[in-house]
């Protein structure tokens, strides 16, 4: 009886000791926060993309915290609006890295913003991964901290243009581009002319480039000029909201010719502009993609997007929502895999751990297939050549941004 009592007292004492020593630790663990940053354009010309990105980030934050957080710590994603202004994106990155002590940043969205923000990421030694920038060389110029979960437009064009040529028997094209958009201007003035030449397609206005400026409402003069050239097809290098103006004008002037462009064209809005004009463009994700992962992602995100005020009631998750979801998922995986503590004193080491994890990443399970990063900081992942038909995007060709046989694809 006596020994039983002593044993019970010992157990109780040991328990009390354990609680006394481990209790505060548990409490700290529960209070501990892992902070990630995000830069999205929630206002300005790409507000739709930025707002949808915000909903996506809130969804993943809720999912992670609902599942117990990251290594017991709560995930907080600090989301800042850059209004698609490069200077604002840079200020946001400084705030996220300096004030919020974010471990890594998702964004900014555009190449114009990435071009000025990535050097600051290098300076502050924090990983920044763009969800949409695809102008060639933007991450490459800012190694080792800059990454892009996108594929270089030049790589995508090598599959897009041959498909376009074959499908529509294209022998000649006219090119029109948005001169004020960094990606559009590069694709329209350098990438597409070179790809057309590689594929023996004549550019009828090669010596007389046709352009317009972001925000232009009237492109009738440019379209009249293209129509007079009578090309077999038209290259429209602009983001979808500007491309809508060109395609509407083509329809108005009776210029029903197949259009080809970059990832910037991918949107549901562009398909409404002129359903009779076929549009070909590459994408790494599309809302009607088949498979467990993409379908689950769409089924979870779409209702949230549709009930968010300021977004169209018929909105679907975009490629950029998928990209930012993957970016945060990769960061979380890096934090779990490399023993990131999230403690203020470990901030520099933690950030470096995430950078090194990203640089060596291969075969991460993304929504459209495995993801890795090449030496330039751009994603190695699968892509699809989509064709806009009867108001919906249809996948026609599957490609990969790495060389054939590369484990990344």
């Amino acid at each position, binding site marked *: 009886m006596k020994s039983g009592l002593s044993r019970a007292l010992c157990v109780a004492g040991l328990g009390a000791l354990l609680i006394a020593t481990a209790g505060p630790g548990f409490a700290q663990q529960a209070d501990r926060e892992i902070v990630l940053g995000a830069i999205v354009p929630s206002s300005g010309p790409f*507000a739709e993309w930025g707002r949808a990105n915000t909903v996506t980030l809130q969804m993943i934050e809720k999912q992670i915290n609902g599942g117990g957080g990251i290594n017991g710590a709560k995930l907080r994603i600090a989301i800042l609006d850059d209004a698609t202004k490069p200077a604002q994106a840079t200020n946001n990155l400084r705030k996220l890295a300096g004030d919020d002590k974010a471990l890594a940043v998702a964004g900014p969205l555009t190449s114009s913003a990435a071009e000025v923000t990535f050097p600051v990421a290098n300076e502050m030694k924090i990983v920044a991964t763009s969800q949409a920038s695809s102008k060639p060389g933007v991450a490459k110029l800012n190694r080792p901290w800059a990454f892009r979960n996108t594929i270089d437009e030049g790589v995508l064009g090598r599959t897009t243009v041959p498909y376009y040529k074959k499908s529509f028997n294209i022998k000649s094209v006219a090119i029109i581009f948005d001169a004020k958009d960094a990606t559009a201007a590069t694709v329209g003035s350098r990438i597409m002319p070179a790809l057309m030449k590689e594929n023996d397609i004549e550019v009828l206005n090669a010596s007389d480039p046709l352009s317009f400026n972001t925000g232009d409402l*009237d492109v*009738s003069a440019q379209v009249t*000029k293209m129509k007079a050239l009578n090309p077999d097809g038209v290259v429209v290098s602009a983001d979808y909201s500007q491309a*809508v103006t060109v395609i509407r004008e083509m329809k108005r002037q009776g210029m029903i010719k197949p259009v080809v462009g970059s990832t910037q064209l991918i949107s549901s809005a562009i398909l409404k502009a002129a359903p009779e004009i076929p549009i070909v463009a590459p994408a790494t994700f599309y809302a009607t993609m088949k498979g467990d992962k993409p379908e689950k992602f769409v089924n979870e995100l779409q209702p949230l997007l549709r009930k968010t005020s300021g977004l169209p009631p018929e909105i679907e998750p975009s490629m950029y929502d998928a990209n930012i979801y993957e970016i945060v998922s990769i960061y979380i995986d890096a934090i779990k895999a490399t023993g990131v503590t999230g403690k203020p004193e470990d901030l520099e080491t933690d950030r470096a751990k995430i950078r090194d994890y990203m640089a060596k990443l291969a075969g991460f399970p993304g929504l459209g297939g495995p993801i890795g990063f090449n030496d330039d900081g751009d994603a190695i992942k699968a892509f699809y050549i989509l064709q806009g038909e009867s108001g919906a995007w249809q996948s026609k060709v599957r490609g990969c941004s790495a060389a054939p046989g590369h484990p990344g694809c």
Partner: protein
Amino acid sequence: MLLQQLVNGLTLGAVYTLIALSFSLVMGILGVLNLAIAELFMLGGYFGFAAILAKLPLPVALLAGMAGAALVAAVIERVGYQPFRDAPVVTPMLSTLGFSIILQNVATNIWGSDPLQLPDEVFGARFTLGPVSASAMQLTIVGATVVLVALLAFVVQRTALGRALRAVAENRDVARLLGVSAGPLTLLAFMLSGALAGAAGVLIGLHYAAITPYIGVEIGLKAIAVMVVGGTGRIWGALIAGPLIGVAEVMTTAYGGSQIRDFVVYGLMIVILLLRPQGLLGGARTEQGPRV
């Protein structure tokens, strides 16, 4: 192609004319550049779209766009102009710039940043005459512009209201001594100006069948150039300068290259400012003060 480009230029010029008149009306009477007019144009477009999507006929859509923009203009006058009436001229101008940004944000929050598109063009029928083709909507824009300019000119030059407006433009204090109520007239000038911008927004929105919250920015700047070229505060000046700038812009794009388009348009404005600061129809150079 030359004739077709001329038609394109005239259509564009007609739009510039309407917005330039809108700027001109407030500038001529109050000497204030209302920078929110570009956004009144954009809002007019959205109101017109809403009416057309509700299956209302074009005249009703036009009236809805004009009335909606006029009401917003009245708010701008009360909140953004009246309190700063006696402040230096730059103060109300900055206040209207603030309104412009706010209205853009409001439109983005209500309608989103994606282009709002009509499923089919309104007045999509096209008329072809030899190498030239024009849509019914293009002809409507040019026709409506001429009618609205003539109507405004009639109101300003031939009616008691117009005389009162011109009196306030000439000298506000003297006009008040003569029994003219300057306050309500200022409000009316803002509302008329808003209605014109709203009409332009409806016509252009329906012509291009797609609008965004940002359509007013570029077109508003061009309209200011038109106002300067035509003569600040000159109604008929805008009718000449609008098509002039529109055709110059289109011809530059077609034959000179898109890259030098803005150089030509704004270069023309600077040349006019240097050589004839009162504008093409601005009267004698010695003539000073605002005119309607």
